[in-house]
């Protein structure tokens, strides 16, 4: 009994010391981690929007559409609306694919960036991250979406050879995001 108590006591002390050390580390790193995540997000947004000078993260607007919450990052330069960006998601070949899409005031796509597509096949599905594929979206209309399908499905987007499913997922995600944007474009541009 005495020995058991001793063992329990030692383990308890170890865990207490560990807990204190981790609490301290957490306190020291919490702010830098938040900053790093925000910087990462801003960097991604900077790649899909033209130049802006407002605080994108603070000016983000949430819209509920079709049971899902969409976050739109409204970009402004000197107060004028220069574009909006949003995150879109779809199921790819091996797992979810997350994208960042940037739309311009004239209703055309500025850029599409892949945020995460780790489960796609390296060398095949992973090619959806390349400019050769994503560049096809630039300049397309956000309001008329007849082009928004892979060639096989009657659309205008050339899929990556050997990665139709991954390509389709990207197009689906972009299309669904644009649909939501089209429905809420007026309120997004108008908001301060």
């Amino acid at each position, binding site marked *: 009994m005495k020995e058991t108590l001793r063992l329990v006591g030692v383990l308890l002390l170890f865990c207490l010391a560990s807990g204190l050390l*981790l609490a301290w580390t957490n306190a020291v790193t919490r702010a830098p981690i938040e900053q790093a995540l925000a910087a990462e997000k801003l960097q991604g947004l900077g790649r899909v929007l033209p130049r802006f000078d407002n605080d994108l993260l603070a000016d983000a607007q949430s819209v509920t559409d079709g049971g899902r919450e969409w976050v739109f990052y409204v970009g402004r330069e000197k107060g004028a609306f220069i574009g909006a960006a949003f995150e879109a998601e779809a199921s790819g070949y091996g797992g979810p694919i997350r994208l960042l899409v940037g739309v311009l005031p004239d209703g055309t796509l500025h850029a599409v960036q892949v945020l995460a597509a780790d489960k796609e096949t390296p060398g095949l599905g992973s090619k959806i991250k390349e400019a050769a594929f994503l560049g096809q979206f630039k300049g397309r209309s956000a309001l008329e979406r007849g082009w928004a399908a892979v060639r096989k499905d009657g659309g205008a987007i050339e899929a990556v050879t050997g990665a139709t499913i991954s390509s389709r997922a990207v197009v689906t995600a972009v299309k669904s995001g644009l649909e939501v944007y089209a429905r809420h474009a007026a309120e997004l541009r108008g908001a301060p």
Partner: protein
Amino acid sequence: MSFYKQFVKGLWEEIPVFRVVLGMCPTLAVTTSVENGLGMGIAATFVLVCSNVAVAALRRVIPGKVRIPCFIVIAATFVTMVDLMMNAFAHSLHQALGIFIPLIVVNCIILGRAEAFAARHTVWLSLADGLGMGLGFTAALVALAAVREVLGNGTLTVWQPWGWKVGGVSPALVMILAPGGFIALGCILAGMNRIQAALAARRGRGYTAPDFDCRHCIICKWGA
């Protein structure tokens, strides 16, 4: 056994991955680029050194019956600290290594050296052991990653932004995937056997390649 001798052991004679066959899972997964291998190696070295020193310092206080839970708590604490620190101060590397940072806890090298060495030796020698094994592990990761990255991707990224495209190499995708990892590892192991046999012959001694089966694992050789 001097500090220097103990340190040098981890760099060749008992180098993790190639001679002491421990820590294989993160090795194969992380060596797709030199940058990732280097980052993982440095993180694991930090944890190994801290864990070895802590275990050696507390070796008279840890009761034998609960030593494994204590080693694990110590290792897990340091790994969590490394994880949080990397997320805060080396964010892109943290994203690249992903789940393999928390998995350093179950990297057999950490637990293996705690049990086989740090629990029975002084803090000073344990520090040497941790440093040697950690740097050896890093060197092994970098060597394997260099082969896989150059042959599989046609590039060599040492640390952002020091990366180069290697001209004249048509990348073979298989090297980046699992089979390529095993092939490269096997070739390096065979190469090391050759080198050690040649060195032993020059000294007039015989050489038998180490047996990589479970019975000869360094943990069981020392542990209970």
